[in-house]
C-alpha cells in the first residue's frame, strides 16, 4: 500500500513531464524540417522540368536551366572524394589500428583533427585560394575547389571512419590472429566489412558538407555559370548558384528554391547510392 504513496506519484509525474518534453522536441524538430522542405517544394516544384535540368541558364539565371551547375557540382564532388576517401581511410586505419603503441601521437593527431573539423568553411576558402589557386597556380578551377573541399571534409571523414573501425569488436581481431590470418586478410576480409556502417556514416556526412558548401568554393572554383571544359576550368557549384539567385538576382527566388530542391534530391540519391555500394561490398567479401 505504501507503494502508491507520494514519492511514487511525484516520480510518475516527473516521468510524464519528461516524456512530454521529449515528444515536444521531436515534433518541433520534425515540424521545422517539414516547414523548410515544404517551403522549398511549394516555391520550387513548379519550376522543375526536364528543360530546367538540361538547359544552360540565361538572363542571370532567371530563365533557362542549371545543367552547367549540375556538371560542375558533380565534378567538384568527384575531385573532393577522389582525394579525401583514400586519404581519410588511410589515416583512420593508421589511427585506429597502428597507433596502439604510440598513444601520444594518436592523441595529438586526433585533437588536431577535431579542431580542424570545427574551423569555419570561409577559412578553408581563403586557405584554398592562397594555396591551391595562387601558390600551386591552379587559379579559379574545379580542381582548386575540389581540393579545398577535400581539406575541409577530411577531418570529419577521418574521425567518423576511425570511430567506425574502433566499433569493430576486438574479438574479431583476436579470432583472426589465433587462426594465423595475415594482417592484410584480417583488414580486408573482416575489419573493413564489419566497419561498413561507420564508413557509410562518414561518407554521408562528408558528402553532405561538400555538396552544401558555398563559402569555401567562391574563392576557389569561382562562379562562372557555363559548362566547365576541363578540371582546370572555373565552374559554379549548385550551392553558389542558389546563393547568387536568392541574394543578388531580383526575381530569382523561385529558381533558387527549384535549384535547392534539385540539390536536396541529389544529396538523397548519392547517399542511397553510397549505402547500396557499401552494402554490396560488405556482402561480397
Amino acid at each position: 500500500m505504501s507503494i502508491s504513496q507520494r514519492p511514487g506519484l511525484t516520480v510518475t509525474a516527473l516521468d510524464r513531464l519528461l516524456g512530454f518534453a521529449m515528444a515536444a522536441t521531436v515534433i518541433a524538430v520534425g515540424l521545422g524540417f517539414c516547414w523548410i522542405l515544404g517551403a522549398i517544394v511549394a516555391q520550387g516544384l513548379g519550376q522543375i522540368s526536364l528543360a530546367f535540368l538540361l538547359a544552360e541558364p540565361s538572363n542571370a539565371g532567371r530563365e533557362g536551366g542549371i545543367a552547367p551547375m549540375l556538371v560542375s557540382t558533380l565534378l567538384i564532388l568527384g575531385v573532393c572524394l577522389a582525394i579525401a576517401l583514400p586519404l581519410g581511410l588511410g589515416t583512420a586505419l593508421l589511427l585506429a589500428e597502428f597507433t596502439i603503441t604510440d598513444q601520444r601521437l594518436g592523441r595529438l593527431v586526433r585533437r588536431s583533427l577535431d579542431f580542424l573539423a570545427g574551423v569555419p568553411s570561409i577559412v578553408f576558402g581563403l586557405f584554398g585560394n592562397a594555396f591551391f589557386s595562387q601558390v600551386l597556380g591552379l587559379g579559379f578551377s574545379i580542381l582548386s575547389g575540389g581540393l579545398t573541399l577535400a581539406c575541409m571534409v577530411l577531418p570529419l571523414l577521418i574521425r567518423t571512419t576511425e570511430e567506425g573501425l574502433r566499433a569493430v569488436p576486438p574479438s574479431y581481431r583476436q579470432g583472426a590472429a589465433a587462426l594465423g590470418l595475415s594482417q592484410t586478410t584480417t583488414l580486408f576480409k573482416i575489419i573493413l566489412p564489419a566497419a561498413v556502417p561507420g564508413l557509410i556514416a562518414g561518407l554521408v556526412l562528408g558528402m553532405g558538407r561538400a555538396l552544401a558548401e558555398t563559402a569555401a568554393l567562391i574563392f576557389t572554383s569561382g562562379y562562372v555559370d557555363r559548362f566547365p571544359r576541363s578540371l582546370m576550368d572555373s565552374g559554379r557549384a549548385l550551392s553558389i548558384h542558389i546563393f547568387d539567385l536568392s541574394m543578388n538576382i531580383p526575381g530569382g527566388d523561385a529558381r533558387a528554391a527549384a535549384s535547392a530542391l534539385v540539390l536536396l534530391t541529389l544529396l538523397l540519391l548519392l547517399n542511397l547510392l553510397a549505402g547500396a555500394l557499401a552494402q554490396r561490398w560488405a556482402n561480397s567479401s
Partner: protein
Amino acid sequence: MTTMMSAATTCTQPLLEAKHLQLSYGQQVAFHDVSLPIASGEIMAIVGPSGCGKSSFLSCLNRMSDLVPHCHVQGEIHFNGTNILSPRTDTLLLRRRIGMIFQKPNPFPLSVWENLALPLREHGLVKSQTSRRAFRQAIHQAIEAVLRDVGLWEEVKNRLHSSALALSGGQQQRLCIARALILQPEVLLLDEPCSALDPLASAVVEELMLRLRPRYTQVVITHNLAQAKRIADRIAVFWVQQHKGQLIEVGSTQQIFNAPTHELTAAYVSGGKG
C-alpha cells in the same frame, strides 16, 4: 583408466613443453617459473583462482601474447623439439598448428561457410584444382568433414550461407572449434570454452572435447572442477603467491582429486566438491 593413459603418455617425449616460463605486463609479473610438459594426445586442464595467470600462460603457447603491448615472456617453450619463443618462429604457421578457442564464441560476421573457407584458403590447405568448380568442391568437402566432426553438420547444412552470428551460443562455439580444426592443428588451446554456455550446450562441447582426444592435444582452462574431473587426463593447478602466479602442482586427475600433495590444492579441490 585415466591413470593408465597418463602413465603411458608421460614416458614419451612431450609434444609441448614450457620451461621456466615467466610472463610480465610491464613491471608486473603475471606468473613465473612455470615448467609444464604436455604429452601428445592428452587433455591437460589448468585450474586455479581468478588472476593467477592461466590465460596469460595459455597465450604464450601460440604467441598470442605478442599482440599485447608491453607484454614480455622469458623462458622456453618447446614444440616438436624447437623453441617457439625464438624470434625466427613463423607465428602465422605456429598459430595454424596450435589453435585457440576463446571464452566467448567469436565467429566472424560472415556466413558459416565463409567462416571456415577463409582460414582454409588463407593457409592454402586445399590443393589447387584443375577448375574453379573442383576447387570449390574440395573446400566444400573439407567444410562438411569438419562440421560433422563437431556434430554441427545436421544443424547447419541448410544454412551454410547465412550469417554465423544467427547461430546459438553453443553452435557458435562449436563453429569456432570447427574453424580451428579445419586448419588441421596438432594442439587446441581452450580458454574457458564452456563458461559462456548453458549447461546443455556446455555438455555438448565437453563431449566433443572427449571425442577429439587423442587425435588432438588439448589444453583447457576451466573454473569448473567437476568438468576438469570429467574430461582431463592431467590437471595443473596455478596459484597466486606474493602477487605472482605459480604452478603449484601438476598430476593425474585422480591424484589431484584423491591425493593432492600441496595443501592449497587440497583446500581448492575439497572446496570445489561442494
